[in-house]
């Protein structure tokens, strides 16, 4: 899952990026409102973490213009402004959730997962596709009832497939889900991780659509 973090404070931004990467998110970090809008134009992000007091363009303005252009990306406002009026304004401007500083890294990750779950239209935390169960909160995966050990990248890759079962994802799209800016991508990283997943879950679990990409088929 790829997250855009908009935070003007260097220390907080650095820590959030670091922590969320440990949780398996790909995180891009920008420090002001204009840079956020430029980054959002790519439409590769699964969620937006937005500070309100931003230089160059206020967070609320970024959010309003986002919603004005019918961009439905899940938005979590992360700010030091804790007044009820601020929360109401933020949520009414189109934010999906509101988190007040100082916050807990685990809570932040949980709220992001909740946003992604709601976007995918699921009520339960665990994702089930056929015999496979993936719980983003505990990062546990089981196949036919037996636990499966996955690396962080493999987990993120599987998460990207299960987020939209039946959709074909290109190699570039998968890379975007896995890597934030500045993270080194090995040339055939996606293939290597898919190979590993197939080894653990069976060859047929991930289908190769020649010339287009990969797919986990929807299963009854």
């Amino acid at each position, binding site marked *: 899952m790829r997250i855009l973090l908009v935070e*003007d*404070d*260097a*220390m*907080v*931004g*650095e*820590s*959030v990026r*670091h*922590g969320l990467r*440990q949780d398996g998110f790909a995180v891009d970090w920008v*420090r*002001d409102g204009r840079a956020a809008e430029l980054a959002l134009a790519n439409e590769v992000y699964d969620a937006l973490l937005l500070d309100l007091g*931003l*230089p*160059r363009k206020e967070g609320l303005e970024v959010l309003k213009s986002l919603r004005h252009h019918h961009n439905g990306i899940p938005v979590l406002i992360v700010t*030091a*402004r804790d007044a009820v009026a601020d929360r109401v304004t933020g949520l009414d401007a189109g934010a999906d959730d509101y988190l007040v*500083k*100082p*916050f*807990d*890294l*685990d809570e932040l990750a949980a709220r992001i997962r909740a946003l992604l779950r709601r976007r995918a239209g699921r009520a339960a935390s665990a994702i089930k596709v056929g015999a496979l169960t993936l719980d983003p909160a505990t990062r546990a995966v089981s196949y036919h009832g037996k636990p499966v050990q996955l690396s962080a990248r493999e987990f993120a890759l599987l998460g990207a497939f299960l987020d939209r079962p039946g959709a074909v994802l290109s190699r570039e799209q998968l890379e975007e889900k896995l890597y934030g800016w500045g993270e080194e991508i090995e040339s055939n990283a996606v293939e290597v991780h898919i190979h590993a997943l197939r080894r653990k879950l069976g060859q047929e679990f991930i289908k190769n659509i020649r010339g287009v990409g990969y797919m986990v088929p929807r299963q009854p």
Partner: protein
Amino acid sequence: MISIRRRLLLWLFAGLTLSTAVAAVAVYLRARVEAQDLFDYQLQLMAAAFPRQGFGIAAAPPSEAADEDNVVVVQIWDASGAQLYLSRPGAAAPENTDLGFSTVASPGGSWRIYSAVVGDNVVQVSQPTRARDELAASLALRTMLPLLVLVPVLMMLSWVTVGRGLKPLNEVTSAVGRRSADDLEPLPDRSLPREVMPLVAALNRLLARLDQALSLQRSFIADAAHELRTPLTAVRLQTQIAERASSDAERTAAFAQLKSGTERAARLVEQLLALARTEPEATERALMAVSLGDVARQVVAAQAAIAEAKRVELGLSSDAAVNVQGDSEALRVMLGNLVDNAVRYTPSGGTVDVTVSRDGSHACVAITDTGPGIPPSARERVFDRFYRHQSGDAQGSGLGLAIVRRIAQRHGATIELADGPGGAGLKVVVRFAAG
């Protein structure tokens, strides 16, 4: 405790009693003069009523149980001086006085006497003066009685009037008394008497000043809490990352981050305290002669190591004999903040110059740097609390220049921001009245 009402009544009572007494005396004296004239006329008439011819000695009328106060004694002598007649042998009326009116003191009291020559005889009519005095006194008493009745009535009226007059004051008192500590709305000042109005107006001005000071305080606390949230967020996140670290290298890096995060929070708290100490309400140390050059030397010495590590050339040129009236501790904080800013924002290889000089009647400290400078549009705002010119400036507390301005104001100094030499960097000039 002094009671206005009691004091007023006391004075009123004293005044009324005194004026009643004065009036009584005046009435008495006046009445006595009138009585004198009246009684004298009576004596005259009586003397004139005796026959002008000589008459033989008549038997004296029997002595009655006379009203001693209201007696008239008549004596008649013939030309030879023999007493022809004495109306009351028992009465101790004096004899042989001059013709006309006279007042004679005798052992039995003082007498008013009228003597006249009637025909061949001398007629003398005497009356004790006590009668006149008593008449005057009773007249005076009768005049005073209504006044004496009036005194308690007036006192009652005053009691009520003073009470009613003080009612607005009581209302103001209870209005103030009912107030809770955070209710600083002005007191109602409509339909107040002129005497109470200034008090309420002064109270309202005080309330307005208090309200202003409190809201400043509140906004400062809110700002401070808000500003503390960001470094605390960083510390909390850094702590969690340190907890999660799985290798020693990761842990070391995380702890280094955590350390700089706590240092930043500590610095912010220090600056907040410094700002609180420069609050105008804080107990002020007396200003005394301080050598600006000495203060600048101490500040530059303290910053030298940091500048050296950053490879910023930091130097001082000082005119030794520049003194100002000041608080040396506060001045050190002020110059320290300015030099700290200059060193912080000047890139490696840059220069920071501190110059202490005398400019006419002013003492000046100038700090010039070769950093990015501050555009003119932002030069006023950088002195606001918690304003940071550069976004994401993780080290700055946003309070340094606010503290500088406070201290400058306390010293009556002005601060001027300008472009550095050659239009690059920043030049900060603090101008004091030389002392």
